[in-house]
């Protein structure tokens, strides 16, 4: 028996004196959050590097005699000659439902003062996008709650739809509205007890934004009761470029957890223009060769590998991406906008002129497109909104032509009147998404000429009145439209009765 004890003790002695191998290096130079390191002969690309004082870095440049490394966090205490060690790990962030309702930084650390994040799992920040075989075509709708988008530029679960426009045209507002709409749908769906209902969780990644803007966004989501279904990843303008570069990948990792676990998620990258700028800054400090507009050669890959991670997986969930790009003076042919346009499955273009004319959301129907098309629409929307894009295009063409002449034939005048009413109908205040069944009912009323007798300037008021009427008095009808997702003869008859009733009250 004592022999056995001796054997165990010998084994313990062996273990306790076993040398631990570390691969080390020393800082040669450090500036602007980028360290050049001697040594680290075993370092891997994208590996986490441990700096003194618990700072973390990522090895981005592996050269013959030095390693270029971006430092995440405070690098003011680091100095030349400090020893660094490899960790053998890729950068990972916490994932899971414990992050919902929280505001975290690019490394998944809470910054909202609500205590530690409850998460047991971590996902690597950089991950290869799902391959062809595991993917499924996009066919389930993701409702934004914005009539102009849901009826003409539908977005599906697993799609990548770019939101592009100049500053101050309402890009972020569209995304916030979409997040709020998901929360509203989630609440209704989960309360209904429908086993087939699939909630959509949202991730909002703020890159290079002012802290005040992020605070405003959080307040808007909280006020709308949407924060509990949302994760906010914040890498504000005051953060170092390395964190701004990493934030979208961290957000994607958090979204992938939902997708891999059979759930649906929506991720907003606000915005990728600033992300490209942060990456350019890092690349220039790392002395990588620069190309067009001083961006490095792999700036396309920077965004393609990120957006390819959005997908709908066969037998699992989906990750829908809404990247935002800010253009300068409406120039969509600049380097980064053209790159992201070519990567995504469509774009929603917001025009400054429309915004200034009071048409909000300022969606340019002519330049906006969803390559998924009507595959991501419910039948009811297809029935009532199928012709809208064509009618609006006709209106815009005729409106331009009509400016030169005063005499118009009756058909042209009717097209112009109808177009003007459609434009008015699509005006929608911010932070006020409209449920898809209400959208279908209002568009049905438009198609059935209920707005023709209303003056153009009163169309917004009439639409608001109809919406209020339907939501307050015809809840059962709206529920039937939502559950059936198509307008049959019976529903159309009920809609007609309701619209007639409303028309009588509105005219008065």
């Amino acid at each position, binding site marked *: 028996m004592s022999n056995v004890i001796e054997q165990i003790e010998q084994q313990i002695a062996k273990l306790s004196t076993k040398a631990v*191998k570390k691969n080390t290096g020393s800082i040669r130079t450090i500036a602007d959050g980028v360290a050049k390191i001697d040594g680290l002969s075993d370092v891997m690309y994208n590996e986490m590097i441990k700096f003194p004082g618990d700072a973390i870095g990522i090895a981005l440049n592996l050269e013959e*005699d030095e390693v270029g490394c971006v430092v995440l966090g405070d690098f003011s205490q680091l100095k030349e000659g400090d020893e660094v060690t490899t960790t053998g790990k890729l950068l990972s962030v916490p994932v899971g439902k414990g992050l919902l309702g929280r505001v975290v930084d690019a490394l998944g650390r809470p910054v909202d003062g609500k205590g530690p994040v409850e998460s047991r799992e971590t996902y690597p920040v950089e991950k290869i996008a799902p391959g062809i075989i595991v993917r499924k075509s996009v066919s389930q709708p993701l409702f934004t709650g914005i009539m102009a988008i849901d009826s003409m530029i539908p977005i599906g679960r697993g799609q990548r739809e770019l939101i592009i426009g100049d500053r101050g045209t309402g890009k972020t507002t569209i995304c916030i509205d979409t997040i709020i709409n998901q929360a509203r749908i989630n609440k209704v769906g989960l309360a209904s007890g429908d086993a087939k209902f699939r909630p959509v969780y949202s991730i909002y990644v703020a890159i290079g934004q002012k802290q005040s803007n992020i605070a405003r966004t959080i307040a808007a989501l909280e006020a709308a009761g949407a924060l509990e279904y949302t994760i906010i990843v914040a890498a504000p303008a005051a953060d170092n470029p390395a964190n701004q570069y990493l934030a979208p990948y961290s957000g994607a990792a958090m979204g992938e957890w939902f997708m891999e676990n059979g759930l649906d998620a929506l991720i907003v990258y606000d915005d990728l223009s600033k992300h490209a700028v942060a990456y350019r800054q890092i690349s220039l400090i790392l002395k990588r060769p620069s190309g067009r507009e001083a961006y490095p050669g792999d700036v396309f890959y920077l965004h393609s590998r990120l957006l390819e991670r959005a997908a709908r997986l066969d037998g699992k969930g989906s990750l829908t991406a809404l990247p935002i790009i800010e253009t300068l003076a409406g120039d969509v042919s600049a380097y980064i906008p053209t790159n992201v346009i070519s990567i995504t499955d469509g774009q929603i273009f917001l025009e400054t002129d429309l915004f200034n004319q009071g048409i909000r959301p300022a969606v340019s129907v002519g330049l906006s497109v969803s390559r998924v098309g009507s595959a991501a629409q419910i039948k009811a929307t297809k029935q009532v909104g199928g012709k809208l894009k064509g009618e609006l295009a006709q209106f815009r063409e005729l409106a331009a032509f009509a400016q030169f002449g005063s005499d118009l034939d009756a058909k042209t005048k009717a097209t112009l009147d109808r177009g003007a009413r459609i434009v008015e109908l699509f005006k929608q205040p911010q932070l006020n998404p409209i449920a898809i069944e209400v959208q279908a009912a209002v568009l049905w009323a438009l198609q059935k000429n209920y707005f023709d007798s209303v003056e153009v300037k009163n169309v917004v008021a009439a639409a608001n009145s109809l919406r209020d009427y339907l939501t307050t008095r015809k809840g059962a009808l709206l529920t039937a439209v939502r559950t059936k997702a198509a307008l049959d003869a019976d529903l159309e008859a009920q809609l007609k009765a309701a619209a007639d009733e409303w028309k009588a009250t509105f005219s008065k």
Partner: protein
Amino acid sequence: MAASKQTKLLAKQLFKLSLDNGAVAPDRVAGVLGWVEKHSPRHALALLKTYHRLVATELAKSRALVEHAGPVSDVTLRQIEDAMTRKYRRPVAAVARPNPKLLAGLRVRVGSDVYESSVAGQLAALSAHV
């Protein structure tokens, strides 16, 4: 002053000339230094600093720096030399250096690899996990 691309390239070429059968040869290093002194190339200081770093890095790969808190015998040093020579498949010479901060045990450094078997290292690992 940071070395330019050309200076780095020249330093690497001089470093390659300093190798004999993959190892740094003192006579070749002397030859290189003589050439630099004679021809005084542009940015000689930056060139020599880069060259010094390359040679030092290469020499560190053939040297096992054994830091120890207590006494270390010649036999132990020879055993370390043999083990490292086998591991790295090149002649590695052990050099002892006392370091009381280790408290007890050894720390062996070969190039950028560090083999930590000291009490100080174990305490640091423990504190990192707590």
